């Protein structure tokens, strides 16, 4: 078991090193305007992802269940999902590889925070002994990743459109895809997040029904997840039915993402809840 724990820590450090080096290359590519630095940084992200996967796998072996409890497991899981979504996005639109400058530091900071948190192995609550947990968590991760991308695209859209309006588009802004593309990606990911949040809520309801004989209990995290889902629903209605201004919608997407973050990371500390992922 000692070997498994040591392997985990070493894998996390190697992953952190990969993400830091790739961040440095992304940064120098931007500062010194060297495209070839990005060509070095891009594969390094894959290296970071590989070692994060190994570390998570070893944690799984160590605790005998999926890595979904406490910061030491949740944060690397989130970093892993964020990097995967970034890589998919990069595949869809290669010009978005520059987003690595945001994703890589986020990933290494999450991994570092996980390493600094309490490493104690905690047993999962009895109601977690079900495959519905994995389905629920998988959809939650995809949903939150999509919310992140939607908000990031919306933020970059706002930045680029303002810079263009002032005629101040610099190298970084110039390197970004056009505003229509980012606007489209932002609302596509918001739509996708809406579906994934819906599946997450539905699978959670099925699980609750199987565990406690009720599919909805107004648990704080349930309610906050429903609030996030409603806000994305409002966003999509405003977009498709009322053709609201793109800038307003972009702000709404950013706001919706903060709601999601609040419901996921903050509510477990504010309320007594049956969701025990960070307790």
């Amino acid at each position: 078991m000692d070997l498994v724990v040591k392997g985990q820590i070493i894998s996390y450090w190697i992953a952190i090193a990969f993400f830091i080096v790739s961040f440095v290359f992304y940064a120098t590519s931007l500062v010194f305007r060297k495209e070839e630095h990005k060509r070095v940084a891009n594969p390094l992200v894959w290296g970071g992802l590989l070692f994060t996967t190994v570390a998570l796998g070893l944690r799984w072996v160590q605790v005998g269940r999926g890595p979904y409890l406490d910061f030491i497991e949740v944060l690397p899981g989130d970093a892993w999902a964020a990097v995967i979504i970034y890589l998919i996005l990069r595949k869809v639109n290669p010009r978005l590889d520059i987003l690595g400058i945001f994703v890589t530091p986020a990933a290494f900071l999450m991994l570092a925070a996980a390493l600094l948190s309490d490493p104690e192995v905690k047993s999962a609550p009895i109601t977690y002994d079900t495959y519905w947990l994995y389905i629920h968590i998988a959809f939650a991760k995809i949903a939150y990743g999509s919310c992140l991308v939607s908000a990031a695209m919306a933020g970059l859209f706002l930045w680029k459109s303002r810079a263009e309006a002032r005629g101040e588009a610099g190298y970084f802004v110039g390197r970004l895809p056009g505003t229509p593309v980012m606007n489209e990606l932002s609302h596509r990911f918001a739509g996708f997040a809406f579906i994934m949040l819906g599946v997450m809520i539905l699978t959670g309801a099925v699980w609750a029904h199987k565990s406690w004989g009720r599919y909805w209990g107004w648990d704080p995290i349930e309610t906050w997840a429903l609030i996030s889902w409603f806000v994305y629903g409002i966003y999509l209605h405003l977009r498709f039915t009322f053709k609201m201004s793109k800038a307003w919608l972009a702000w709404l997407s950013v706001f919706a993402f903060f709601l999601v973050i609040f419901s996921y990371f903050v509510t477990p500390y504010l309320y007594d809840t049956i969701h025990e992922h960070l307790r």
Partner: protein
Amino acid sequence: MRFLYIMLSSKKLAIVLLVLITAVYITGMVVPQEHLLSKNEFSRWLAVNPTFGPMAQKVGLSSFFSAWWFLCMVSLLFFNTLFCMVRQGFTLITKFKGKSPQPVQFEKWPHREELKGSPAQITGHLTKAGYRTRVTEWGIYAYKHRWAQTASLVFHLGILIVITGGLVSALWKTSGVVRLTEGQTFGGNIHEYLQTEQGYLAKIPEDPFLVGIDGVESMKDPISGKEKNVSQVVTFDREGNVVEKREVRVNQNLSVVGHTFYISRFGYSPGIIISRDGREVFAAYAAVSYDEGKDVYRGDLTIPSEEWSVMLEYLPTSEISVIIKEKSSVLFENTLKIQDSVDNGQIKVEYMELRESVEFIVARDPGVNLVFAGGMVALMGLVILYFSAYRQIAVVFKSGRGQAMVYGRAERFRYSFSAELSRITDTLKGEPEAVKQQEA
């Protein structure tokens, strides 16, 4: 009547209601909710907020989901969604029945490109791209994902089914708690044994049946050594026939005679007798349940006749620790083995035997299937809505020499539609020889 129809089928009303309901949810999460707190905690909150607290309680903010005004908002949203669907349904029927669009309309379509190609060639390419084509008097009309226009209807239908299911649950769901002790069999009418917050559960089937549990087995987590799950065999016997006999665990419940049995707690039932000055004040199986947070088996009971509170803790060696308090003073504190009897001069506690026990939530919810079915329908609608959009292309030929104007429009995702249209026209532009041959 028409005004009412227009108002109820207004999408603006839908947005207003969605925003209002979201605001209520957020307010409900800021104001403490009665169902999330114990009675004492809620009373304390009321005492700390002497002005706002009672006011919030009076208007239903402290239990917003059962407040009349919130139910009115949800009902209004239900009818608003229904009427919006009816209105959209009529529009769709008109659209489906309508003829192909006319060239005069194309000027308003957002995508247009010039093209050279024969009708057969263009039709071929459009078909390859998944479009259905129709030759008209002015050229070629092509479309795909026409049925995707119904996606929004499907999604909202799902939402209506979910709300209906929720309403059915709220009106007709019954649930209660029953505690069974290993080896014990309840006879007679189960009404007597299902206690709910309102009293005894009333909607259980009229015919009597017997419930028994046996083979209780707790499963330990190999890593932490804590309880991971519990399994027991539950038998339902009606008039001498076994109706159901199955192993039940947490997350693996048992549905029988229209009711579902969920394990809510598990633990032990020590049979104890407590006497005061030679007078028996308590003689029954007490309940000691597993407390996950503290990884111990504990239970509390009150003896109202004596104003005593009794705290029990099961120890791994089958011993139990007993503390009896009267208000804050401890009257008795000791650890007993099975068949022990301890007398401190004032109180005598006898620990007769130990049985394993389990507490079930017994529920009958006729709305649950509707909610899940509605959820599935809504998700299906969303998936259609997300992955396909109604796309139309019109190719108007300018002359007989293959000069054509291509117009296009998509219900959603215009950027990707524009890319698709460009791909089709670029392919056609890249085949001048083929065009010539076709013309020839």
